[in-house]
């Protein structure tokens, strides 16, 4: 049984979808004033400052940690720079108990939810307090208490998982949804299409949030797809869709707030395409000068989402230059001090090599571990990170635990 509702024609008429031009929703001009006809979402001073703090925290953390990577203190880093409004504006429009599944460039969402500088640092340095037990590369954060799924490197795998997670939320009936972040490059993966189609078919409360930041490493969006961005794909799945100015925190907030309503109240999945720009390199291992111009970057620097938000705050008299200065200095100091402490902490216990593969360690893996320990005892100098581990020395560990 086909379900097409189209009418019949008797000559071969092709269509190219040009009639579906999707507009870009904007509220906030760069000077902090609203576009004519635009109505700002109801964000009070307290929430506005929470959003802004998260933006500045993210920017400063990114600047400092990239510098730390350049100094050789950190193996790898990825910045959110330029995309803070897209990420934090959307996270702020959710309920704090909604699930967030991120790609890897959305640390702003965690900062908004209250992930501390200390928690960021422990993961970045993979020390004994890292919730992920030093197993993943830097920026693969996760927090159960903040309802933020641990990040994994493979691209787009989180998208159908978000559909599944949100289906479970729908059955649980507690009024929660899942928001999943991904880039316009990841949207080329099969998992993206699978996820949107399944969400539409099964009416799942999930928000697909695409950060169209112009580049997948070096590949420009123009070589990623021939269509007008990612948004038109929603029509193919019969899904609500909106395109927003990703550097406009108010537009992103309002779009996400409405999307959440559709998701939670009507079980309608939504696709949001946020048009933004990756001002930073893809990662600390990338150099954008090989594939894009300084002029292009300069155009986007003029559209800085944090400055735009700051201008908006000032237009309400919610923020001053001296408060800005104080916040920046405090955050820089905190980042530096916390980094020093995190770097000094010991590595995860040797036992974390074999735990959590399964709930219980299988006998064969235990046997491999016994063999390894005996080997390390014979060659302690070759294994400086674990030669003094309790599993090797037999002395009890100094265990620190907090809620993850």
């Amino acid at each position, binding site marked *: 049984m086909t379900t097409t509702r189209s009418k019949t024609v008797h000559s071969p008429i092709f269509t190219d979808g040009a009639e579906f031009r999707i507009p870009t929703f904007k509220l906030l001009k760069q000077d902090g004033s609203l576009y004519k006809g635009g109505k700002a979402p109801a964000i009070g001073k307290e929430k506005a400052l929470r959003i802004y703090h998260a933006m500045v925290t993210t920017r400063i953390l990114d600047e400092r940690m990239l510098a730390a990577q350049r100094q050789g203190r950190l193996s790898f880093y990825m910045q959110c720079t330029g995309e803070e409004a897209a990420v934090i504006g959307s996270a702020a429009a959710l309920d704090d108990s909604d699930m967030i599944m991120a790609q890897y460039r959305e640390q702003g969402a965690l900062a908004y939810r209250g992930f501390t500088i200390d928690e960021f640092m422990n993961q970045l340095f993979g020390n004994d307090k890292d919730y992920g037990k030093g197993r993943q590369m830097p920026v693969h954060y996760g927090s159960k208490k903040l309802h933020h799924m641990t990040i994994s490197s493979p691209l787009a795998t989180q998208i159908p998982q978000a*559909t599944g997670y949100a289906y479970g939320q729908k059955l649980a009936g507690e009024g929660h949804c899942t928001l999943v972040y991904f880039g316009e490059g990841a949207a080329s993966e*099969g998992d993206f299409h699978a996820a949107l189609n399944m969400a539409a078919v099964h009416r799942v409360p999930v928000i697909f949030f695409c950060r169209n930041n112009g580049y997948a490493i070096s590949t420009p969006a123009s070589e990623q797809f021939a269509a007008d961005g990612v948004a038109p794909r929603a029509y193919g799945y019969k899904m609500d869709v909106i395109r927003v100015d990703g550097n406009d925190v108010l537009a992103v907030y309002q779009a996400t707030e409405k999307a959440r309503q559709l998701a939670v109240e009507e079980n309608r999945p939504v696709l949001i395409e946020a048009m933004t720009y990756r001002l930073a390199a893809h990662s600390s291992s990338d150099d954008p000068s090989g594939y894009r111009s300084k002029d292009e970057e300069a155009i986007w620097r003029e559209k800085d989402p944090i400055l735009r938000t700051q201008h908006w705050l000032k237009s309400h008299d919610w923020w001053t230059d001296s408060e800005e200065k104080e916040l920046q200095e405090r955050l820089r100091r905190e980042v530096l001090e916390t980094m020093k402490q995190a770097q000094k902490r010991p590595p995860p216990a040797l036992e974390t090599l074999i735990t959590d593969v399964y709930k219980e360690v299988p006998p*064969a893996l235990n046997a491999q571990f016994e063999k390894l320990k005996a080997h390390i005892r014979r060659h302690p100098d070759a294994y400086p990170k674990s030669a003094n581990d309790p599993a090797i020395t037999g002395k009890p560990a100094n265990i620190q635990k907090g809620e993850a």
Partner: protein
Amino acid sequence: MAKMNMLQAINNALDTAMAANERVLCFGEDVGIFGGVFRATSNLQQKYGKSRCFNTPLVEQGIIGFANGLAAQGSVPVAEIQFADYIFPAFDQIVNETAKFRYRSGNLFDVGGLTIRAPYGGGIAGGLYHSQSPEAYFAHTPGLKVVVPRNPHQAKGLLLAAIHDPDPVLFFEPKRLYRASVGEVPEEAYQLPLGEAEVLKEGTDVTVLGWGAQMEVIEHAVEMAEKDGISCEVIDLRSILPWDVDTVAESVLKTGRLVITHEAPLTGGFAGEIAATVQERCFLYLESPIARVAGMDTPFPLVLEQEHFPNLLKVYEAIYDSVEF
């Protein structure tokens, strides 16, 4: 007890699990009102509703991605991949996501509730793409459990154990036996242990090891060998990952000989792993080389299935040669 074929036993296990826990969900291609192409999920949608047993779009990577998310949320998904041959679009979700979910999050999140069911194996004139035995690919992935039942009683007990197990389980069902294998199955809930092999028959001359549909082949091959006066010890491995090294090694220490058989191609097959481990554990006790009777290193053929297949004559010959070495 009731007489059931393997499909009925699997259907009964799913029914039992869904009745006991409303968070258990069954889904996959054609799994809904139709009950699956093999009818393993018959009547489940009628009984438990469309929200708990449903069709998915035709996209294996989506099915497993969706299942991973559901399991992470705390649901207990039982996802069906219609044929094991079609599991590969989901390989990334299984190998990079399912298997690593708990480890990479430091145990903050896990998909332990997930069970993936897939019919596997040849002997049904299925050709290249309805006959494969892909267990070795997954056996190479720490974090997964891989289980293969041999008969209806085992299928129900192992499937219920897989659904309850705190780790994700791939449950490969020998489709050749779906209707061919019939036996007594308790109607109440019961679980059989994962990670434990079962000695089906004690013997002294040679250990013959397999799993799933190959156990039926072994049974007949051993009958032939015993007519020659060879005493065979028969072991069903049941769990490919983690596998029960102790039970197998103990048996080989006694018999001094080992024949392993599986349908999957020889090279890179799981028999190689078993042989390597057993020679480590039993080196001084071995009286003949460990024999592997497997599918040939070719895609699974159609017309010449018997020639390709590790059938009873080939297994019998391997047993005979092992003892006569």
